[in-house]
């Protein structure tokens, strides 16, 4: 088998770093303009579309792709499948950085970012957003604790790392509980819009659908992030571990599909599957890419054992699931538009994200990649040193 581990002599530092820094700088300028003159001038958000690109990409997608951390933490620490240990640290790092990116982007999106701590002092217990806010803040702390041993090892304070390791279990469990809560609550966030979200997506069990899909996304992210970092940081690929993770994906997706279509049958919404025009097309496209294709893909052993095919499958899965998050939080929501004097409720209001709007997200994402690169370089994130790696072919 031709391994794609052809090791580059050196991580091409200057060019990539310059590009990333440039994108970050542009995002920073846009953010400053936004703080000076408001959200309106730089984005297409309006009273009809209070939430748009930032929420769909940074919050919904950002949190979803952060799920790798808790999935791996549960596998390694709760189910004690210690063989997956090498995947844990990078996954926790990805989650940690991902959640920081979520918070940073919310600081741009919020009208009053300086008041974000109000969520801790003026609490309204019926608000789903409050639960998500508190869960994300707490989980960020948990991830910091989970990742801290790596930092301590990096600065040669092994004693501290050992100390944290001793008490890691409660934090792992807390992390999994917090993740379960806010991964599902992202779905609950839309429950308050039964009149706006299309019935193909709106269901009381949105939180369950979100949680199950987050499990699949988590596994997909671990595959993606391990494969990519093995290529760029000249280290071996734990392909036998990833193959095993891939084996679980069809099972999760089958459950997901049963839940999704079971609900449609139960709510007798099946007729929308073919009668809702664009919405039906979006729905079928989403189901196909997020579930059906990956389910078949990961069921085929030959594809699972080929690192490139495994990566491709993970990318298809992630694209499909991200498409689901966009559908739920943006494409399938119809907004009222009383201010334009168009009488029809849910009229044809348009929202097209602007370039500066996207630049903010891209800049924050660049910062995340840069931070991952720095951490991977200067901290012992990857257990295996290159010389130890024996890319195993099957078990």
């Amino acid at each position, binding site marked *: 088998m031709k391994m794609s581990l052809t090791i580059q002599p050196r991580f091409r530092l200057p060019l990539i770093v310059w590009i990333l820094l440039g994108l970050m700088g542009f995002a920073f300028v846009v953010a400053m303009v936004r*703080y000076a003159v*408001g959200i309106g001038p730089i984005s297409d958000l309006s009273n009809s579309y209070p939430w748009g690109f930032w929420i769909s990409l940074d919050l919904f997608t950002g949190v979803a792709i952060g799920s790798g951390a808790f999935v791996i933490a549960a596998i390694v620490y*709760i189910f004690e499948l210690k063989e997956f240990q090498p995947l844990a640290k990078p996954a926790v790092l990805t989650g940690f950085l991902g959640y920081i990116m979520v918070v940073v982007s919310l600081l741009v999106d919020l009208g009053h970012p300086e008041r974000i701590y109000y969520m801790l002092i003026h609490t309204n217990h019926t608000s789903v957003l409050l639960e998500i806010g508190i869960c994300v803040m707490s989980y960020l702390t948990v991830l910091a604790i989970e990742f801290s041993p790596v930092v301590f090892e990096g600065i040669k304070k092994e004693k501290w790392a050992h100390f944290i390791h001793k008490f890691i279990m409660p934090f792992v469990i807390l992390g999994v509980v917090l993740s379960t809560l806010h991964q599902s609550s992202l779905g609950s966030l839309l429950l308050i819009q039964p009149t706006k979200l299309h019935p193909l997506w709106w269901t009381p069990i949105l939180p369950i659908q979100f949680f199950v899909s987050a499990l699949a996304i988590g596994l997909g992210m671990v595959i993606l992030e391990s494969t990519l970092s093995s290529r760029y940081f000249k280290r071996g690929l734990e392909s036998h571990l990833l193959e095993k993770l891939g084996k679980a994906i069809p099972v999760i997706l089958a459950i997901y599909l049963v839940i999704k279509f079971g609900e449609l049958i139960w709510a007798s919404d099946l007729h929308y599957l073919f009668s809702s025009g664009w919405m039906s097309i979006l729905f079928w496209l989403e189901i196909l890419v997020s579930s059906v294709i990956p389910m078949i893909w990961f069921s085929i052993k030959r594809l699972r054992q080929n690192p490139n095919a495994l990566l491709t499958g993970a990318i298809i899965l992630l694209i499909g699931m991200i498409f689901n998050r966009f559908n739920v939080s943006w494409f399938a929501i119809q907004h009222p538009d009383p201010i334009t004097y168009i009488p029809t409720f849910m009229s044809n209001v348009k929202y097209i994200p602007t370039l500066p709007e996207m630049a903010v997200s891209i800049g924050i994402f660049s910062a995340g990649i840069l931070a991952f690169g720095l951490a991977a370089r200067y901290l012992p994130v990857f257990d295996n040193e290159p010389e130890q790696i024996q890319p195993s072919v099957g078990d």
Partner: protein
Amino acid sequence: MSEIKQHAFLFDATRCIDCRACMVACSVENNIPMDKTRIWVAGVGLKGIFPNLDSASMVYHCMHCEDPDCLSACPVGAYTKRPDGPIIYDPDKCIGCRYCMNACPFGVPHFDYDKGLIEGAFIDKCTMCPQRIDVGLEPACVATCPTDALEFGERADLIARAHARIQAHPERYIDHVYGETENGGTSYLILSHVPFTELGLPEIGSLPVKEVSETVMGYTIPFALGWSAVLSVVAAGVHLYNQKNEKKSSTEVTPEESK
């Protein structure tokens, strides 16, 4: 039951002449620039063929729901409902998340998209003029309405009045008072001669849209506790089981590889 009067509006679409004096009165009373008006007049435009033309318009502002969704959605509790009806927004608590705008099925709360951090971007919406009703006056929009399309009073009285008007002129009205039950009841009641959807009003059942969301939120704490317990037990169980196995097969070198 309670002695506190539930204030409410009654809007009669057959009386509205689309003069928009209410918008001006509101902006003057509450000192709001006209482009940030708290009232919109939605019009269906002309309908029908020449001599039989018809038009309808609707004065649109906060419905002051009996069981408000904005209040349920706001993470920091910036919304309160006064016992006598008005839903009041507190800009000092608002973090600008705009979730209330998503939550409101009527699309009422509006945001200052043109204000930066220093000026402060806030939500704005109709307040039912508490400064006026507290001294026994009607809200500015009602006081200024030249055709009595907008009326103000106690909610129960207005519902009775609306039904009486429908009964007196069944040929003129659709036999329904919008807001009597919609979204759990609103303090803005509407009579119309054209279908309510044509006036820009959403079709909502008698349960507030927040119902499912609040029910699910109610499970959060019990679920979190139960799930923590389950995970702890599983983790402990797996750990004990593995320890036992390790002891049994302590002579073997690689217990990990066995499967």
